[in-house]
């Protein structure tokens, strides 16, 4: 069985000492299988970038270990098949886009002008390739950052907030790019982002961390389905339906969502839906339509991180 693309075991990272110590990541355990698009979510200061820096061996764990394709991240070999964009795209401002990529390529021990040319074309910078990066916009630098991450034709792409500073068009392009890398080129993508809508659209699995703790991890669909969701029902007569529901489940009806004397909305775990329908039918309520108002990833994220914060404060 092939090793997972990323394996993080009981990772803890503490910055500073004594009273000044800050625990950026706490006992984080995570596995990302090859071929997945994995969303790594969390508010500012959650520990996402710290985790990514450990993966790239920019910082060392205080405790625990991290592996890329089964090789400890402290070994240079672990990064042979990895491309990364870590916390924004920063380049030598006095050099051209082309020269920056040549320097990075040579630093990796290779020199592939054709590959550089192809990558510059693919990120739409061919007309600016010989211009100084100092004059580039944030979006252009991000695109150059992607080209840099792809230099060694990696099988794992680690992208830390790749949409930061991008306009809506740029975000759309980035989403297309990530989807293409994963689904056309079969790369594993580990994506840290604040853009939850984007993550929901491109990721297979997500993990949510806050204050260094892993709060939730799983398939995007499963996490959203298994969660409490809104059930909308078109029923007649509505008064009897309300009585049945209140009698069985208590205060789950949203009065503001009782519409046209036909539609009502209740908040329950989605696996309760067949039971609701059965009870209504048993009480001679006609059920015409049932729909689920699934929570968005953003709503789930806010609920999970708020709960965690309340837990921490309590």
């Amino acid at each position: 069985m092939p090793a997972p693309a990323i394996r993080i075991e009981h990772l803890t990272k503490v910055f500073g000492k004594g009273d000044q110590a800050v625990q950026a990541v706490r006992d984080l355990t995570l596995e990302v299988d090859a071929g997945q698009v994995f969303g790594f979510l969390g508010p500012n200061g959650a520990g996402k970038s710290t985790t990514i820096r450990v993966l790239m061996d920019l910082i060392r764990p205080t405790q625990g270990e991290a592996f890329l394709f089964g090789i400890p991240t402290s070994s240079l070999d672990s990064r042979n098949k990895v491309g990364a964009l870590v916390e924004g795209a920063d380049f030598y401002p006095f050099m051209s886009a082309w020269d920056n990529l040549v320097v990075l390529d040579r630093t990796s021990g290779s020199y592939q002008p054709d590959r550089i040319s192809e990558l510059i074309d693919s990120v739409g910078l061919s007309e600016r390739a010989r211009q100084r990066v100092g004059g580039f916009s944030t979006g252009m630098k991000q695109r150059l950052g992607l080209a840099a991450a792809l230099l060694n034709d990696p099988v794992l792409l680690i992208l830390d907030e790749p949409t930061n500073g991008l306009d809506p068009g740029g975000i759309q392009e980035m989403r297309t790019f990530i989807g293409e890398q994963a689904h056309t080129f079969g790369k594993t993508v580990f994506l840290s982002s604040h853009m939850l809508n984007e993550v929901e659209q491109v990721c297979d699995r997500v993990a949510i961390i806050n204050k260094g703790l892993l709060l939730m991890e799983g398939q995007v669909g499963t996490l959203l389905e298994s969660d409490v969701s809104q059930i909308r029902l078109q029923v007649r007569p509505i008064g009897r339906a309300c009585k049945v529901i209140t009698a069985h489940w208590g205060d789950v009806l949203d009065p503001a969502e009782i519409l046209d004397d036909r539609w009502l909305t209740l908040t329950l775990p989605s696996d309760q839906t067949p039971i609701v329908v059965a009870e209504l039918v048993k009480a001679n309520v006609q059920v015409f339509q049932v729909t689920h108002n699934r929570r968005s990833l953003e709503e789930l994220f806010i609920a999970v991180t708020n709960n965690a914060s309340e837990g921490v404060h309590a």
Partner: protein
Amino acid sequence: MLKLYQAEWRKVFANFKLTSFLIWILPIGYFAFHSVMILLSLLSGTVQAGVEAFGLGDWRTDSLTIWNMLIFFPANLFGRMLPLAFMAVVFAGEYQWRTLKNIVPRTKRWKLLLAKMAALISLVMVSMLLTALIASIMPVTGHRIHDLPYGPTLSAQVLGDFLLDTVRTALIALISLLNIVSYAAIAAILTRSILGGLLVSFGFAVLDATSLGFLLLLRGLLNKPELINLYQFTPTYNLSNLHAWLFLGKTQHFISAGVAPLIAEPSFWFSALVLAIWIGGLIALSLWLFQRQEITE
């Protein structure tokens, strides 16, 4: 390692503003100064007299002077500042431009640091070599225009001796550069900023160049006369001593103010060993610091 060196060379070379102000200014400045003086000497008898009086009277000595500025106190106090500033900015720039996160994951850290040191030293050596050439050719040209001699006529013997002296002096200057490149690296690693890197590396270099004065002060403060003997173990003294052995065939003495030196006649190999320990130690320290450093920006 060669590709890594090429990458570092390209980065350094491409930083045109920085290299112009701190590296190319030497040969360009020398060339411009001599050109202006030659032109003015054609127009004015006073300037012509000035040109005749200018220089050390021998193109060989003029050429070697530029290298000696990296070696001897007090010239090294200023002579090393431009290359040191250049090196400090290049090392610290990686932190300020937040580019270490791009390059550190791509190679081994020790290779990265050594390649950068090698690229910086080679660029400074190229600049020094050009300056040394200009410093010898331009005064000769100026004097030739006015039909005046300036040092011996070129012959196989003169050229051979001159080249040998240049190689010897350049090698000692190279040791001095190895010394300051490690100061620059350590300062940048510790401060992670261009300004901090400049200030701390200047501090190291000044302390090194003025170590005799510092030890004299310390001796007076602590009332321990024998402290002055520590000067025999400083880079500045041993660079001078190497030079003295190579050019004069004897030890470089220093003001020990009545105290018998710890080693009466420090030999060429003594100085070579002390410098190897200093430079090896400083480079090892910079590698160790960089290896352990957390790249958080």
